[in-house]
């Protein structure tokens, strides 16, 4: 289908992007990390991957809770697979338990007798990055916190861009009074102190994941409108738009088929920076305690614990290093895209 073929100029831009190694590999690693984070349960989980018990196979990772009675234990609540593994190993039968590489989940408090958390990293316990002040595994909270942050950031990006692009496009396309009114509205709106609003809202109701996305979108959609307005304004006056209108095309047809495809490069250039912005915003809100409600695993909450317990350096180090690596990679991707999509490189004088 000719419709889905990318035009050569865009293909050239992507080829250029792939040649910028730093950005390209950052993008690959990030994409892999995001992809894998959706399967975090396989890598970081208190549930076992595989259990073989009395000739039967169990795969507890996904699915319903398997009570301890199933495996001949004396309780109805969820099986403690770490203990089950020790018991089965002691019996030396053909039964065994295969645990996830990091055998803790983000919510359980691994409180050991005689030790006051946080505990330092220990390979023997499986706490590769130690535990936090409530005895929860830092690695598990990092991994699940990453997933929360990235999903939050991408969702926020989609919401922001949907609203921002629609309004910006409409401003540029229809112009006139509509444009003027929205310009003033956005100027006023941008000056609402966002943090205070969040604090006020958080004091009235505890925001959950989606309401936080909604609140942040409410104050974050303006950024994209300016760029979209300008680009649309420019494209609208191009002759191919006139040509389409002369053929009898509707406004919607012109916007979706002609103007938006020509603004993709602007949108794509801003995506990485918006992603890192979203992650930073969520982390800082969590750090201040106005973000996602506890005990949701989040980097900001971990950061707050870390800065309050600087003696337990593994907490603050692991979260700060993760932040640095993640944000640097996102920035590398952003840089590479900006470089690859730089219109000056593609201007051809014919």
């Amino acid at each position, binding site marked *: 289908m000719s419709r889905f073929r990318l035009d*050569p100029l865009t293909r050239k831009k992507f080829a250029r992007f792939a040649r910028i190694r730093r950005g390209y590999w950052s993008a690959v690693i990030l994409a892999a990390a995001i992809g894998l984070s959706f399967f975090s349960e396989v890598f970081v989980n208190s549930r076992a991957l595989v259990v073989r018990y009395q000739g039967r196979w169990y795969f507890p990772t996904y699915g319903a809770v398997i009570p301890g009675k199933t495996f001949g234990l004396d309780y109805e609540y969820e099986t403690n697979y770490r203990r089950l593994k020790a018991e089965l190993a002691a019996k030396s039968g053909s039964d065994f338990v295969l645990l996830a590489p990091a055998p803790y989940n983000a919510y359980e408090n691994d409180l050991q007798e005689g030790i006051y958390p946080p505990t330092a990293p220990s390979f023997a316990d499986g706490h590769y990055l130690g535990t936090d002040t409530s005895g929860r595994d830092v690695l598990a909270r990092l991994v699940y916190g990453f997933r929360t942050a990235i999903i939050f950031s991408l969702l926020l990006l989609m919401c922001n861009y949907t609203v921002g692009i629609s309004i910006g496009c409409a401003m540029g396309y229809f112009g006139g009074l509509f444009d003027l009114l929205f310009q003033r509205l956005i100027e006023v709106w941008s000056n609402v102190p966002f943090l205070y609003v969040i604090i006020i809202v958080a004091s009235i109701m505890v925001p959950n994941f989606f309401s936080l996305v909604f609140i942040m979108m409410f104050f974050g959609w303006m950024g994209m409108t300016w760029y979209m307005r300008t680009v649309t304004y420019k494209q609208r006056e191009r*002759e191919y738009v*006139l*040509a389409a209108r002369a053929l*009898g*095309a509707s406004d919607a047809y012109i916007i979706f088929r002609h103007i938006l495809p*020509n603004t993709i490069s602007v949108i794509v250039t801003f995506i990485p920076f918006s992603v890192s912005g979203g992650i930073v915003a969520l982390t800082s809100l969590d750090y201040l305690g106005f973000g996602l409600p506890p005990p949701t695993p989040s980097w900001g909450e971990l950061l707050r614990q870390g800065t309050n317990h600087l003696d337990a350096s593994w907490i603050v180090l692991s979260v700060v290093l993760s932040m640095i690596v993640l944000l640097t990679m996102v920035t590398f991707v952003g840089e590479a895209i900006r470089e690859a999509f730089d219109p000056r490189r593609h201007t051809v004088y014919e």
Partner: protein
Amino acid sequence: MSGSLLEVKGLKMHFPVHGGLFYRQVATVYAVDGVSFDVRPGETVGLVGESGCGKSTLGKAILRLYDPTDGQVFFEGRDLAHVHGKELRMLRRDLGIIFQDPYESLNQTHTVGFILEEPFRIHCVGTPEERRAWAKDLLKKVGLPESAFERFPHEFSGGQRQRIGIARAIALKPKLVVCDEPVSALDVSIQSQILNLLLDLQKEMGLAFVFIAHDLAVVKHVSDRIAVMYLGKVVEFSDADELHHKPLHPYTQALLASIPEPDPSKSVEEKPFLEGEVPSPRNPPAGCRFHTRCPFAQPRCRTDIPELKAGPGVAPEHLVACHYAGELKPKS
């Protein structure tokens, strides 16, 4: 004139200029200021004039790419200037436009196939397979290979792109096509190919053209009748041959005289060249708009606006807007 396909009556296209703190209207550009002419089925009417005289604006205003300030544009009896929405979109099936710059008028992000299927898609005619077949027919009609279908506009030369633009304009078999300087951006060698293509298509499909150009030589070659524009007004409108041999308006005379003649025995200095610049359409001169540059200007020309009416001593359809038409002898 009842036999007209298109009849433009007193068309005015004024653009407001806004400025200042409160976005007030500070000036008006009188791009097209009361233009009347008509086009009969299957004929070519040439529109000539200097850059900035409003001929492109006129072309776009006829097709309602701009909303005219005043006046009527009757196309088959219906006033294009005052139809809206669906009715306008249906009328546009019978109208086409070819633009000057073939680099600008084709969307870079679409394939040629997509561009040529677009007219059918917009008007929801045919199945996808039919549209594909029709688009390929169009390519053949304008002399491009079928392999062009999957390619992108930037892979073609200027002349080939203009052929794509023409194919798009004729896709829905329109009755009237506005050609907005279709050859001025092209090489001279390509110009004649494109002109011949247009003439062939006209013969084959019975198209009527409004042919806009600043080059009188090109217009003379393709047009049946010619309207000469100066600063938003038609100053002379007549049969092409007649205009060539008996120009009445001093501006037409100057334009005709400025066509370079391939005759080495004639000296360049002998020709009467127009002096000065075209006045700004923001503040057009009172009276006859040409009086600031007219070599024959009289006191009356500064105050009275000449009407477009039948000239003295010529065919009745030869219209001219000059107080002293027929009394002036061109220097040559």
